[in-house]
């Protein structure tokens, strides 16, 4: 399994990937932001699913 800082989380609904290394700068989340530090009210930028709808990419 990937180490913190390199993990990827996938949106159940649309497949959008949150990559910890890249963060989500357009939404104010800096590169390197760990998943647990992403705000709980953050929504999938593509489909508005909640943070709870993302799951760790176990294939990494």
């Amino acid at each position: 399994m990937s180490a913190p800082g390199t993990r990827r989380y996938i949106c159940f609904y649309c497949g959008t990937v949150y990559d910890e290394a890249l963060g989500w700068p357009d939404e104010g989340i800096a590169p390197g932001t760990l998943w647990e530090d992403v705000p709980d009210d953050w929504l999938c930028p593509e489909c508005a699913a909640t943070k709870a709808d993302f799951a760790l990419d176990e294939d990494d």
Partner: protein
Amino acid sequence: MTALAAPANVPPDRVIDFDLYDFPVEGLDYQGSMRALFQANPAEVLWTPRNGGHWIVKTNADVAKVLADNDHFSSRRIMVTEEVSDRPPLVPLQLDPPHHAPYRALLQAALSPKAVGKLGERARELSIELIDGFKHDGHCEFIGQFAQHLPIAIFMEIVGLPAEDRPYLTEIAEAAMRGATEAERNEAGAKLMGYGMAKVAERRANPGNDLISTIVRAEIEGKPIEDFPLTGMILLLLLGGLDTVASTLGFYAQFLATHPEHRRQLVENPDLIPNANEELLRRFPIAILAREVKADVELGGVTMKAGEMVMVPTPMDGLDENKFADPLTVDFARVKPGANSTFGGGVHRCVGSVLARTELRIFLEEWLKRIPDFQVKPGSNPRVSARSVATITSLELVWDPASVK
């Protein structure tokens, strides 16, 4: 207008005369027509005395709030109606958290992006087969020949039902969802349950690799699922799987048939299709949800009382101009049109939406490659039929057989 009766907690300026099951639809624009009726009253939250009397939320913010707030809103009743139904609750949709979670996890595993990846390829093969079957004819009845065929056949593969049952199931699902009378809808619902439970008995005796077998074998809190919730689960699967994508495809096809510029854009630039798919989902939601108020709550300047019903029209999220500029216009280059409530929201967001999105995208890709130009048959008169899910009942399309590829 005569005064409409309303409970004491409903301010008079919030009252409109709106019947979800009988309101005027302009052409086939079910969503735009509903929006126009709600926009005519400037208040944020409305109330109608029809169908037992219920609130109506009409902004993206309120739609999201109601769907996300499980402390004040319950999905134990999901339709605005005066009718009393004795059918088992649809599981997990009509269970509040945390009780819904173990049932939902079962469905979620079967409909995950990974699982759907494989199904998508099957959906593509079947789409091509169907389109190739009629493209040289120069015409088709889109709903029967494609919209009700593709998603229903794929769903039947997931749950392991025989292909020859498709016409029967399509017919009773339509009657259960939009039958003309309560008696007709209940009778069809009972037939659907009977069919589902017969399959459950078969799979108990001879389990396979299908979703019904998975559900039959599953344990919740260490025990097999009892027949009552199991019936509700199978019924939800059948209603969700048999009706919704078919209905959405009808709205997609009628839009493309009547908008040659949009069609051309996608034919010339297929890379736009994934975003176009999200944009069409935003513009043409088909589901009108409802929740029961669990505990008194303030919303949009009114007090909603426990026991009252709230209608949650999913089109009012994607068609809210505060969220999407010029919302009635379909713009395939729109930025992030997918952030909408077309599939609902909160803990009950549609578990089949990954598969639905995939099937809809495949339709756009494979249809436009083969039949790039088509229109609604002149003189035909397609109509919207709606209860809590809107559909186009028949859509005759025509094209020049020489133009197909």
